[in-house]
């Protein structure tokens, strides 16, 4: 159920045009120093808009932005029927926005009463259908109850209800609908294992699926992988998401998000050839990247080895990414991975690298760079040695012949030692056995 609120005209234009339009408005949430809360929230609908607004309010640290987010959240909640959220938001506002934004007990009571009535009605209907044993009605009954619980914020009950519809699904369309509902609730509950499960279930239905649904499923799968830290898989799913997704999945994810998540995960986990074929040359994904030109620049810079500007772009994006509910815990790891990959890629083609030039390229000091390089060498990601006196990095390739000799001698020693121990143990066991058998013979 989409709730259209009062959105600024520019953002509305962005929403209508979907992709490629209103560059300023859609670019605003990503590249501005300060996140434009309204424009950002306009990309989403349903409960995820609320969740994101509340998250921004908790994390942003800037009072003005916080109050703006809370205000929008309050209005949004008033339009819905979730009483618990209303209480939470009112508590968070704490009276800072004036009397209009306080706990509205009357509204709470009305809504609760209405909810109880509706719940009774739905349950009675469902019982009726169940006695009649009409599959389709039972399925719709459970579905309605699921929707009801969802709107009221009782997510685990909603989840259970949606699961119950599975037994009454007859066509693949029903199955797909059930899967989509379950996926939606699971994402909000944070149970990403279920998400992956139901995505595969939906993809396995015999009928061919609507491309929008396919795109939705891919995006959901990508999200699940991202949250479970499987960055490579997440990247793959995101770049395969069809552009048909548009704004149809705004209750979960916006197309800009697909671009950002996909690009970051790909940079952190794909190797160079994959990066070129799946991201840069991918016409489909290019459409997504057009929505967030900063990220597109970022990817191109990385591929063209302009690491300074690439890392600069990343830094600019960072504060806003930290306000994203799905990405925030992964930002540090992804950034670290991207940085390491950049360093490794920088050193690959050279026999020797002057650390001073490298430090300016990466906009860091020579000492810090040396430490980072030492760590990477210890993890065996770079085959090189550091000349700390002259501040040069020399590539070093292991001498295969010597290494083989060493390994052979070592294996010989290990074999000798292990076989001797084994023979000794066998002998001990034999004596033990002899004692036992001779003992048993002595009647």
């Amino acid at each position, binding site marked *: 159920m989409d709730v259209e609120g009062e959105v600024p005209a520019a953002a509305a234009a962005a929403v209508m045009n979907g992709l490629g339009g209103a560059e300023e408005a859609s670019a605003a949430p990503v590249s501005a120093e300060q996140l434009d809360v309204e424009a950002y929230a306009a990309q989403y609908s349903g409960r995820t808009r609320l969740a994101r607004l509340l998250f921004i309010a908790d994390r942003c640290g800037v009072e003005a932005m916080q109050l703006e987010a809370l205000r929008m959240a309050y209005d949004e909640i008033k339009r819905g029927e979730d009483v618990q959220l209303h209480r939470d938001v009112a508590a968070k506002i704490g009276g800072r926005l004036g009397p209009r934004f306080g706990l509205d007990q009357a509204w709470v009571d009305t809504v609760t009463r209405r909810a109880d009535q509706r719940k009774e009605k739905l349950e009675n209907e469902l019982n009726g259908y169940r006695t009649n044993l009409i599959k389709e009605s039972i399925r719709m009954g459970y579905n309605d109850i699921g929707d009801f619980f969802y709107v009221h914020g009782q997510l685990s009950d909603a989840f259970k209800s949606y699961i119950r519809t599975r037994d009454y699904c007859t066509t693949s369309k029903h199955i797909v609908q059930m899967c989509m509902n379950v996926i939606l609730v699971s994402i909000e509950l944070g149970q990403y294992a279920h998400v992956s499960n139901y995505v595969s279930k939906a993809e396995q239905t015999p009928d061919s699926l609507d491309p929008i649904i396919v795109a939705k499923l891919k995006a959901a799968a990508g999200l699940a992988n991202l949250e479970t830290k499987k960055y490579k898989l997440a990247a793959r799913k995101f770049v395969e998401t069809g552009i048909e997704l548009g704004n149809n999945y705004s209750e979960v994810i916006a197309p800009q998000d697909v671009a950002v998540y996909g690009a970051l995960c790909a940079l952190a986990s794909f190797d160079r050839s994959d990066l070129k074929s799946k991201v840069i040359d991918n016409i489909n994904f290019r459409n997504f990247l057009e929505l967030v030109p900063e990220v597109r620049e970022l990817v191109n810079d990385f591929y063209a080895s302009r690491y300074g500007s690439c890392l600069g772009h990343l830094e600019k994006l960072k504060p806003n990414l930290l306000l994203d509910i799905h990405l925030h815990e992964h930002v540090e790891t992804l950034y670290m991975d991207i940085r390491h990959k950049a360093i490794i890629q920088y050193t690959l083609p050279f026999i020797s690298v002057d650390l001073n030039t490298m430090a300016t390229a990466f906009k860091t000091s020579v000492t810090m760079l040396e430490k980072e390089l030492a760590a990477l060498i210890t993890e065996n990601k770079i085959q090189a040695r550091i000349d700390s006196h002259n501040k040069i990095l020399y590539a070093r390739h292991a001498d295969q012949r010597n290494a083989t000799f060493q390994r052979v001698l070592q294996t010989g020693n290990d074999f*000798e030692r292990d076989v*001797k121990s084994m*023979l000794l143990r066998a002998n001990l066991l034999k004596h033990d056995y002899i004692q036992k058998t001779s003992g048993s013979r002595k009647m």
Partner: protein
Amino acid sequence: MESLEALVAHIQGLSGSPEEVAHLHSLLKQADGEPLRAHAAALVPFLAHLSPETHSLGYLYLLEACATSGSNLSDFGGGDFLVTIAGFLTACSADQIRLAPDKFLNVCRVLKDQVMQLIMPIRGIAPLRAAVRKIQSSPEQLTPVHADYLLLCLLAKQYKAGLSVLEDDIFEVEQPKDLFLYCYYGGMIYIGLKKFPKALELLHNAVTAPMSMLNAIAVEAYKKYVLVSLIVNGQVPSFPKYTSVSAQRSMKNHAQIYVELSTSYSNGRYTDLETFVQANSAVFQSDNNLGLVKQVLSSMYKRNIQRLTQTYLTLSLEDIARSVQLETPRDAEMHVLRMIEDGEIHATINQKDGMVSFHEDPEQYKSVEMLEHIDSSIQRLTALSKKLASIDENMSCDPAYLMKTGRDRGRFDGRFDYDDYDSVPHKYF
């Protein structure tokens, strides 16, 4: 009961050929026991009439009777008796004494006790070494004398003497207890000689030997095993599959402090490790492991410095000191110098710049010595493989084994699997 003189005459007469010796043996067995011991005091002068080499068996019986008679050996002129025993052990004939191994072992035991009582362990070393060789039926057999011998070497700090016995590989064991003591003392001797890899081998055998219940020797061996592993490898491996169940379950509980030490070591911070050692030094001291623990501490520096050689070509002494957590560059210089001298790293120190340059291992594996080393290794290993194959063959002919596998396979219908003939452990492929 014959008189002593008659007995001695028999001994002197019947020590010529193996059949006579066998006859003598039966006579001696008859005469053996309490009556002989009762005459212990009178036996000593008779011993002078007999010669240890030719009349070994008889000499042994009489000697054993004196030694185990329960009366104080100083009655027999203390030190001289010791000399007598020592002389006998060195000079006796191996074939004869092998007919009465228990008595021989008793005599050796008495020698060891006596020597320890007199706190002169060094006197027992040469005789016992000879004894070890004499009673072994093959160089691969372990006898109780081994353990006693190693103990004396340890107490006398004559580690090199212990080496000659330790270099033989042991494959046959009569009593498990001997093995534990042998491995434990052997490990300690190797530690004293700073040959830590070999010590690790022996202690590993002690820890992983099959045992139905945990014994104290294995626990002590485990404590040292942990420390030596840390020095050699920087970490303690987990118990392999073949360790006995009782060991796996309860060994660590008895050596809790050592397990904590190893976790502290693996964190890599020298100061933490040092404080831990200081805090628990009383416990280590009571286990007589404090010296070894201190070696573990210094090995931590070494390991960190070695890690640096993998990452850097040249490094200033201050940087070394900082990354290894040493106090001053001078300390770093000393450590590096010592390591270069011990051959643990290859580097040169440039004092003018305060820089250390690390080099690759100059070993090119092209020299004649290396070829000889490889060649001898190959021969050794081939011999070992053959031995393994022959043991496997013997085992497969053993009727008990055949019965068991026949039962498991259902019908012994003559189908042979190719795998039955694999004699080499699979992981080496």
